């Protein structure tokens, strides 16, 4: 709190109002442009319905929210995400800690991880379909694969950045091995692991949606592909906006959670760390 308050009190309320004004103006301008495009579309210059009017999309959003089928697909995607993310991040935290604790192991496996980590995971999709079929299993595998890398890198880095002075403090206070782990290593790792988990969570969602759009029989990605195939463009946009809103809400929730944990350490340096995440 001590840190976040500073800007607000020094420079007053004006910048905040300006920022909000710009943000709202941006949305209004985009909506107007969209309507202009939609009008152009209706006049026959674009393919019909490629740009449905925002009213149409709004109605489709409402329709979607009251459609039980939406919740069926949402449930599938969530289940895939929870299972995939849990498996992927659990393995990643374990491997990351092992890499941080054992330089030999790290040297051995790091080139492979760096190599695969910088490859777009989408190229493994066909292999996952072959291995796990086109059902939810391959989506879980994709979620696990996507979540693994940000978590393993963040955990390893966290292990390597543990303050050597704090370890020496532990030594001079004659901590046992177990106490070193529980009192120094583990608390030091809370932040890097949570940062990694947050990124991994976001990237796993992307990975799963991509897999669903590509080849599936259920889930939100499947539903988007289905609307696209039926040329139900307004519904497709509606679903995209809903997913966007859900993702934004999840991100806010994670930010709040992480800030809570960070307040303990008096900082909020990792705020917004996951916003730029992509595949």
């Amino acid at each position, binding site marked *: 709190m001590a840190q976040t308050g500073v800007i607000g009190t020094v420079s007053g309320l004006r910048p905040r109002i300006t920022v909000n004004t710009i943000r709202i103006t941006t949305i209004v301008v985009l909506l107007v442009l969209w309507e202009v495009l939609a009008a152009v579309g209706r006049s026959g210059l674009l393919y019909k319905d490629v740009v449905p009017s925002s009213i149409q999309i709004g109605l489709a959003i409402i329709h979607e929210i009251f459609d039980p089928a939406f919740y069926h697909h949402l449930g599938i995607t969530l289940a895939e995400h929870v299972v995939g993310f849990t498996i992927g991040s659990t393995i990643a935290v374990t491997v990351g800690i092992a890499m941080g604790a054992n330089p030999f192991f790290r040297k051995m496996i790091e080139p492979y991880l760096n190599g695969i980590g910088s490859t777009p995971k989408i190229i493994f999709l066909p292999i996952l379909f072959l291995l796990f079929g086109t059902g939810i299993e391959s989506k879980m595998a994709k979620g696990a694969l996507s979540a693994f890398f940000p978590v393993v890198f963040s955990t390893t880095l966290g292990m390597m950045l543990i303050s050597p*002075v704090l370890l020496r403090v532990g030594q*001079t*206070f*004659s901590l046992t091995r177990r106490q070193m782990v529980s009192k*120094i290593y583990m*608390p*030091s790792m*809370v932040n890097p692991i949570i940062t990694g988990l947050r990124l991994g969570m976001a990237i796993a969602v992307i990975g799963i949606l991509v897999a669903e759009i590509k080849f599936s029989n259920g889930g939100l990605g499947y539903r988007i592909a289905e609307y696209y195939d039926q040329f139900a463009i307004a519904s497709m946009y509606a679903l995209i906006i809903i997913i966007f809103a859900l993702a934004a809400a999840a991100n806010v929730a994670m930010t709040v959670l992480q800030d809570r944990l960070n307040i*303990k*350490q008096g900082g909020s340096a990792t705020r917004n760390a996951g916003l730029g995440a992509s595949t």
Partner: protein
Amino acid sequence: MSGTLEISNVSKTYDAGGENPVKALDKVSLTVNQGEFVSIIGPSGCGKSTLFNVIGGLIPDYTGEVTIDGHRIDGTHRDVGVVFQEESTFPWRTTLNNVAFPLEVQGMAREAREAKAREFIKLVGLEGFENHFPAQLSGGMKQRTAVARTLAYEPRIMLMDEPFGALDEQTRLLLGDKLLEIWSTLKQTMLLITHNITEAVQLSDRVVVMSYRPGRIKRVIDIELPRPRSSEVITTAEFGHYVGDIWNELREEASRGMADAEEKLAAR
């Protein structure tokens, strides 16, 4: 709680069998009596840190003997409490929980350890900041937290490695006063490692001047300034004499160290 430190004929050579053996300490002998405040001063490369680590039990393979109240040191032990130069408070713990840390790992019950921690927090003048996290404290307050934490450990000997080295001169002088106040209350044996001459004279009963590589004791200077001493002492003529005296001893060593360092850079 006793606390007599005897260092006799301690030598330490790094990379002894290798290509570039470095003799960090050469037959260093020194006795620090119980309740005494002794500073070790020397240029970078005089073996201060090595001596520090030997006493702290972090370097078990030295030659010679270091004993605390007659017990030889050959590994980490509970007799010495250390305050580091670097920031060493746990960022995820409040002042109270930082200070209670050594008691917590010893298995003391929460109420007892918190009561004890509060005493030491009061002693270092951090009352009212018990529930602050280090990020909410100034550099000087963080170092006082670290000092209180080590005091709470109730070591026989306090070993401080430039505890105020990262702080500005004025804060350092005032914290020196605080440290002397604590020292007179607890009658704790204090061994301070520093390269700040003013700090050494301001605080110590004796100042040990060490030579540049290999680290040997060049001279031991008794500081006979009256006690209790406050930082005002630095304005007196006697204080100036002591500082001048120590600098005369140190200048040659520091020059050698600097020339050596520059030579190494030139050879690169």
